[in-house]
């Protein structure tokens, strides 16, 4: 049942190519091949020769012999089949059937032999199949390559866009000239980071294995995932390069980067005080985070089901020594706004002077990497006019297609970042055809959701629309539409205006960030 070797030799016994399929020593195979021309007689009408130990099954091809060496128990019918296949393969791979031609294409022939005989066992293959196997054309590889390419392109596009956006932002900032921050240096740094990333982009994951440059896709994709959340939350400056894994992530990364814009600016400011006071941690000794979460449910044909804002003021103190402070806050007077303070906060002080301080002056605010929520608030009973973003969806069936028109309108109060409007679609085989769009779209086939994303909604694009076509579907399938965005100003406009130390000395440096995020914003 086993073919020992498939060989091509010249009539004089010179072994041109031979592929062995079982372990045998070199001298043995050479001896067998050299003996063959002497064994093969002339004028015989059969094409096999048996010796004491082996059987040769052969076929003359012009000036050469193509032969299989098998053991004597081997199945002659199979072997002849195999030989027939090989004899068809040889001219395919070796155009000139002489010694020189065969030597030249020796390796191609070996590859072909390998496909026709798998470890000595016959394979049921045709010449066409062998050719296909040897050509190694793979759809999957092509698809994979295309995917890689598109990913690279996408990332590059996003990068460019971000860069230009940041440029624009910088210009705006320059105009507005908020506070005393250096508005120029920040974006530059970001830009620079991007450039760095684009250079080293292909080198990600190179540490994961030996020589696995750019090929180890899995590790490439998974590594950043693990490292990301903590980096985004606490150490924004660290490991920037790790986060360019996916566009989505880049967006999030940039989002948080922008939310922390000021912090970064301060960070890069040369400050002798800071370097003396806190040589180790990169961020400020005191950080105040103000965050408002939106829980909104809007009915599809107008009216608000639920509109609820929950806010938190949280404090992070790095060193114990800086914990003896009080915060002076101020906020806009919004109807329906109600505060709640931490039990350890001096309520009287807060209610009378809007100062957040501990009940027991000898007890500092807790320090460390954790944020301590100090004040919570809610805003209730706001009406539709206060919605930061309203979305209208108009599905209409026409013939064999359903046209869906969606438009958004944003309130002037906020500049919204990373707006993503997710429209559920009926299960589709292919992506819907988008006729018109302000912004970008992406079709997530697994969840069959169309994501319309607008990176920034500001004065220039307070309203926008999109139109896409899908096969006929019930209008209700396009709901609930969920919307995600963030903004850097809040409803309550709560701010920390100053820090007063309880003990002697200079007030510690502090930074604050404020943001509004849509936690659950749906059109039902």
């Amino acid at each position, binding site marked *: 049942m086993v073919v020992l070797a498939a060989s091509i030799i010249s009539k004089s016994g010179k072994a041109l190519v031979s592929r062995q399929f079982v372990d045998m020593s070199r001298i043995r195979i050479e001896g067998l091949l050299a003996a063959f021309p002497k064994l093969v007689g002339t004028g015989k009408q059969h094409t096999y020769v048996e010796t004491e*130990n082996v059987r040769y099954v052969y076929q003359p091809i012009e000036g050469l012999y193509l032969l299989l060496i098998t053991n004597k128990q081997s199945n002659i019918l199979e072997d002849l089949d195999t030989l027939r296949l090989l004899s068809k393969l040889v001219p395919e791979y070796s155009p000139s059937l002489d010694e020189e031609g065969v030597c030249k294409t020796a390796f191609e022939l070996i590859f072909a032999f390998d496909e026709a005989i798998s470890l000595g066992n016959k394979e049921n293959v045709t010449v066409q199949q062998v050719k296909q196997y040897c050509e190694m054309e793979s759809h999957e590889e092509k698809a994979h390559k295309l995917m890689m390419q598109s990913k690279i392109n996408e990332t590059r596009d996003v990068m460019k866009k971000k860069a230009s956006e940041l440029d624009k932002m910088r210009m705006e900032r320059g105009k507005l000239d908020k506070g005393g921050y250096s508005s120029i240096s920040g974006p530059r740094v970001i830009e620079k980071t991007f450039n760095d990333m684009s250079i080293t982009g292909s080198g990600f994951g190179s540490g994961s294995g030996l020589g696995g440059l750019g090929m180890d896709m899995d590790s490439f994709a998974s590594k950043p995932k693990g490292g990301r959340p903590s980096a985004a939350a606490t150490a924004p400056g660290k490991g920037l390069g790790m986060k360019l894994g996916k566009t989505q992530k880049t967006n999030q990364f940039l989002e948080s980067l922008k939310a922390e814009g000021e912090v970064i600016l301060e960070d890069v400011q040369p400050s002798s005080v800071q370097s003396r006071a806190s040589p180790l941690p990169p961020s400020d000794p005191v950080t105040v985070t103000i965050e408002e979460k939106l829980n909104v449910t809007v009915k599809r044909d107008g009216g608000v089901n639920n509109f609820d804002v929950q806010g938190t003021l949280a404090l992070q103190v790095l060193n114990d020594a800086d914990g003896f402070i009080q915060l002076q806050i101020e906020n806009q007077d919004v109807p329906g706004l109600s505060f709640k303070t931490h039990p350890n906060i001096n309520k009287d002080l807060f209610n009378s002077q809007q100062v957040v301080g501990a009940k027991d002056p000898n007890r500092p605010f807790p320090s460390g990497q954790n944020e301590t929520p100090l004040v919570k608030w809610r805003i209730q009973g706001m009406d539709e006019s206060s919605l930061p973003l309203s979305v209208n969806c108009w599905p209409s069936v026409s013939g064999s297609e359903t046209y869906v028109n969606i438009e958004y309108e944003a309130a002037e109060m906020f500049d919204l970042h990373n707006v993503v409007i997710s429209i559920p679609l009926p299960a589709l085989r292919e992506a819907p055809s988008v006729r018109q769009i302000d912004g970008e779209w992406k079709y997530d086939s697994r969840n069959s959701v169309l994501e319309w994303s607008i990176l920034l909604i500001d004065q220039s694009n307070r309203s926008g629309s999109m139109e896409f076509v899908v096969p006929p579907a019930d209008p209700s399938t396009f709901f609930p539409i969920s919307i995600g965005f963030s903004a850097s100003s809040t409803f309550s406009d709560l701010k920390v205006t100053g820090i007063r130390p309880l003990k002697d000395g200079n007030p510690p440096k502090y930074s604050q960030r404020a943001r509004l995020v849509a936690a659950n914003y749906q059109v039902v």
Partner: protein
Amino acid sequence: MEKPCTLLVHFDKGSPSMANEIKADLEGSDVAAKVDAMKRAIMLLLNGETLPHLFITVVRYVLPSEDHTIQKLLLLYLEIVDKRDVASGKVLPEMILICQNLRNNLQHPNEYIRGVTLRFLCRLNEPELLEPLIPSILANLDHRHHFIRRHALSAISAIYRLPHGDQLLPDAPEVVERALTGEQDASARRNGFLMLCACAQERAVAYLLTNAERVAEWPDLLQMAAVDLIRKVCRSPNRADKGRYIKIIISLLSAPNSAVVYESAGALVSLSSAPTAVRAAANTYCQLLSSQSDNNVKLIVLDRLHELRASHRDVMVDVVMDVLRALSSPNVDVRRKVLDLVLDLLTPRNVEEVVMYLKKEVVKTQAGDLEKGGEYRQMLVQAIHSCAVEYPEVAGSVVHLLMDFLGDTNVAAAVDVVLFVREIIETNPKLRVSMIQRLIDTFYQIRASRVCSCALWILGEYSLSLSEVESAISTIKQCLGDLPFYTVSEEGESTDASKPAQPVVNSVTVSSRRPVVLADGTYATQSAATETAISSPAVAPGSLSSTQNLRSLILSGDFFLAAVVACTLTKLVLRLEEVQPSKAEANKASTGALLIMVSILQLGQSSYLPHPIDNDSYDRIVLCVRLLCNTGDDVRKVWLQSCRQSFTKMLAEKQFRETEEMKAKAQISHAQPDDLIDFYHLKSRRGMSQLELEDAVQDDLKAATGEFTKDADDANRLNRILQLTGFSDPVYAEAYVTVHHYDIVLDVTVINRTKETLQNLCLELATMGDLKLVDRPQNYTLAPESSKQIRANIKVSSTETGVIFGNIVYETSNVMERSVVVLNDIHIDIMDYISPATCADVAFRNMWAEFEWENKVAVNTVIQDEKEFLDHIIKSTNMKCLTPPSALDGECGFIAANLYAKSVFGEDALVNISVEKQADGKLSGYIRIRSKTQGIALSLGDKITLKQKGGSS
């Protein structure tokens, strides 16, 4: 075991490629150049270069390449590169570098890259390298592309079978079994199933038995594997569930794929020796025989049937007619095998039928003028001949038919017929009358001289009644034509005129001269050999239509035939005198015969023919003349009775020899004292012997790969040791020579006899003759008074005495120049390559005439007895004597014998010895050696010259 060699590529030494160039190309970015460089690197590696520094280059520059061809070449490179340290046998540390690449390849999006990588892993033997890849291999089992699954299964199989492979993949059988259940691809299923067969037989059996119903629908590849498994399983004795397997096999006997059918038939025979099973197998073989058109298949199937015949003759007898049907194949080899087989299967019951069939075939050859018709007819005649000898009762039905072929243009067939007739007429007295009548009727058709002479003898010997004798004489006369053969006027014409004689005669003389021209002069007198070699000219041309066949033959100068005619006539006349009541008639016949003889003599002595009559024939004819003129009782007795007696004796002798041979054959199959004894009654089936049979299958593969060599006789081992250097040389070396079929292995022991370390010690060998060194020599360092075993492989490509020269070169630390010790020559003996063989007498003569190389050695020996000398030569040349011992009997002072041997390369060696005892008691004569190639003739001649002295030496 030596390192296995997985591929060979012819390497042209004319274009040496330097390692540096390869390196530069590999480092470059040009894909085509890289591919080329990889190819060159592989070829260099194959050619014995080690290229140790190239590996890192390959790792750095070739591994990351995306090109598919490069990746595949890389796998070939990895396949042949040394992965282990030569000294310690440990895996080289840098090899671990390829693991990552292999792992990436196993996860490559291209399914073919994955597939070829998995295939490469099948050939990887290093568990250290395989271990990190195991998870990736297992992951590939679930890939949706069958190309990958196939190879993943074989890779798992190969890994599991490695030593300690079960530690690498402890759950491999379960995994494979699971994969097998869901698998659809035929090849993948086969690979998985084979894995189970090899590693977890009980699982494979379970799988087979659960699917027993569906086996017939399985793809052929899987069916083959199943048959293989059944064979293996049933090897273990006393399988109670054998029936279930046999059921599966029986269902496979009707499979659509003929390969499966063939395999199943073989398995069935090994499974059971029950007549039913054997009959089923034999029938299957017969079906294959008739359905397959390929000659190779037919021949091998016939081989299988031969094997069956050896063990189950009784069953085979029943299928003899089916086998005979294969005679319809036009191939001579197939027909010969069929006839061989059939002749062994004759029984009184079927002989009639067989002979009828053969007869029909003979008639067929007459009708269709086939190219090989003559040869085939000869075979058929021989077959019928042997049938008739064994079962004389059938002779009557065929002999008349066969006698039609006496005038066949194929001389060999006609000779066979006439010999057959001669034997039958003696052994079958009942047929004599009709046969003689028939012979007389057809005599004029006989064209060949040999057939003629034999037919004449029969006529002379067996024409007994008056009418027979008379018609025999008249037939001969008729065939001779009008007397005289030649007249004076013709002589005058031919002498005074320079033009050639009559046109009729002219053409005849030309044809009779042809043998002389053809057999390149020297060999013209060897009539026996030339006659068969060029048989057609011996038939007188231009006379086919005439009835005077004897006349034209004699006119062509065949005086031997003329002598036979004379003898026959003498014999007939003598007999006529006994049976003819009328004296006058007898005398008339006698004078007629005398006239013919005289005419022949006259023709022989004329200048009309280029050659005058030879002395032997002349003497015989003259003797006949004298005899007829002066008859006596004792002479009469000699002529009329002794001839017949000696012929009878010859036939008896022949019969005796055949029975002797049969007995000898039977003797061989007798059990050896230490053989296993099968007690039939203690065993339900002769299953045990199948065990040995299956072991033979295993050994077969091992023998084929050269892994398996019989242990040499230990006593003879030491005789093979050759001392290569002197005892006082700084380096002592001796070699133990092992001669395998196609290669010679020298195991050289080198001993440092000095107190210094020898550096760069190298055993350099050079060869003469058809020997080739396989490996290039390596350098060694030899500590003081230590020894080292060096092994050298030498390839042999033809039978020829070869010489291996060599020297040992080394350096010592204090002397910078290299020292050389020249070694004793090693002579490779031709006797290791030739083995005694037999061939038919005719074949021997044909070869003798055909072969170009002759070496003639004059006998020079101290041996006094010619018989003893012959034995001595046979012994020292390892040949077989073809001349039958009966022909060598007796003391007559001379001996002539033919010896024959065959080399492992299939070359023939022919030797003819003719010696004569001189008056002084010494032997003289010649030994002639002939072969197709110069090598054998020369080396064998040398050998004989060396050994013939014999005697006391």
